[in-house]
């Protein structure tokens, strides 16, 4: 062992599931569908902690796992969907929650990271002096909430708005917003059903003057939009976490 390169973040290698499987009570091998067949496998940490061992699990016709045979090791982790009757995301439906957790995709035993200051994006030092008072991007500040927020609400959500601010305050991110507005970056494409559409081509970088203009364009969104907490009934209509509406335009949900 130890010949394989290490995976990022100290993540171990996943359990090596077979390409073809033999289903209980059936002859011949078949292609797996891990949503259905993951539960036929159990895993444990391998001896070196670099990955997982797997072995097939056996079930009786009623679907109850049969006891281990002599010499079979105890499975620490169950693969496949964690429960029947609900539809799990693909990542979980294949690996199961226990393997994902052990591998470092779920919970880590770490305290809250301690930052000495609010995160600042690369563009922050170039902002106009007026907007350098806070790390929060002008469009993500508390006053963007039309109906206000309590102090508790704001302190609860603020870390997310700071992270979004730092991501937005980046010269690479700015290339996207530049291209949405700049018609010189718009090209016509012809689609058989949609007809003539615009496709934008992003630039790799912007000049300082262009960055300053994009920053101002984004700041101007303070006049055009706002945040508020939507009723669950309305979100149900869009099946969305949030949506953006401008009068005269269709809604874009998320």
């Amino acid at each position, binding site marked *: 062992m130890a010949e394989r390169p290490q995976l990022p*973040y100290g993540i171990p290698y996943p359990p090596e599931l077979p390409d073809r499987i033999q289903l209980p009570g059936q002859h011949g091998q078949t292609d797996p569908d891990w949503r259905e067949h993951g539960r036929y496998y159990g895993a444990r940490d391998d001896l070196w902690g670099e990955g997982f061992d797997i072995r097939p699990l056996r079930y009786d016709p009623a679907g109850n796992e049969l006891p281990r045979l002599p010499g079979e090791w105890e499975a620490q982790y169950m693969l496949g969907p964690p429960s029947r009757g609900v539809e799990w995301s693909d990542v979980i439906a294949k690996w199961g929650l226990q393997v994902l957790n052990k591998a470092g995709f779920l919970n880590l035993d770490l305290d809250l990271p301690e930052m000495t200051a609010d995160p600042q994006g690369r563009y922050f030092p170039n902002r106009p002096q007026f907007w350098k008072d806070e790390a929060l991007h002008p469009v993500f500040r508390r006053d963007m909430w039309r109906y206000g927020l309590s102090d508790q609400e704001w302190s609860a959500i603020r870390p997310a708005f700071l992270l979004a601010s730092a991501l*937005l305050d980046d010269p690479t991110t700015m290339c996207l917003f530049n291209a949405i507005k700049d018609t010189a970056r718009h090209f016509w494409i012809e689609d058989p059903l949609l007809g003539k559409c615009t496709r934008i081509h992003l630039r790799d970088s912007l000049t300082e003057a262009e960055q300053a203009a994009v920053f101002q364009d984004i700041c101007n969104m303070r006049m055009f939009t706002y945040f508020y907490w939507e009723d*669950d009934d309305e979100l149900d209509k869009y099946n969305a976490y949030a949506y953006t509406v401008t009068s005269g335009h269709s809604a874009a949900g998320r």
Partner: protein
Amino acid sequence: MAPAFRQALMAWQQKDSTEEYSGFFHSVLVAAGIPESHVPEDFGDDLVSPVLRTYVLLAALILHELTHAFGQAYYDPDHPLHLEPFIEGFRANELGFAAERYILGGITRPSGFLPAAGLPPSWGRHIDAYATFGLYTNDTWAQWLAPGTSNRTLEEGKDADFAAPIRAWPVAQRQVYDYFTDEMWKKKVPRYGLGALKYVKIPEWAVSRMPGPDPAYPGVDNTLR
């Protein structure tokens, strides 16, 4: 914005005085019907990892919505359907998801389950807002959606999209954690830019939804590999 985020994040702030936050993780196991044999070790004890995921999810969400709003403010949709501009390499007319992929290298998704029939849809938003079961990322949206005037996906690139699996990668929690460190914002981002932040998609851990036998309807009888 979904009040589910307010609820989850305010509950987290009060986690030391009320059991609303930690209690959610136990009630969600019941709602999902997960037997004891399939519950991860110490599930629900770590209350830091999930809140960091919620912050990332919410940050991606507001960037997504801001991009839509920016498009509505500055782009003239000279089109009968008021289409947004397409972004090169993205077949769907969805500026928000295209922006997420551009900035973080993938769309930010909460892993979880669809609530059983009978539960209100808002339950799904709560499971997602708590980011209970981790995050995953993928780089397409509506990959298997047929072109059409209401679907708003392009014909160009359709065949390749339909023939390809829909891939998803779990996001390492350590990466989520690193978004909230001085090391990231004072050293890595100044040096590597957004490259320091993009989701690391570990190929060995990718899962693939394989298209079904009929090339015209890849979703029918698809399988998970």
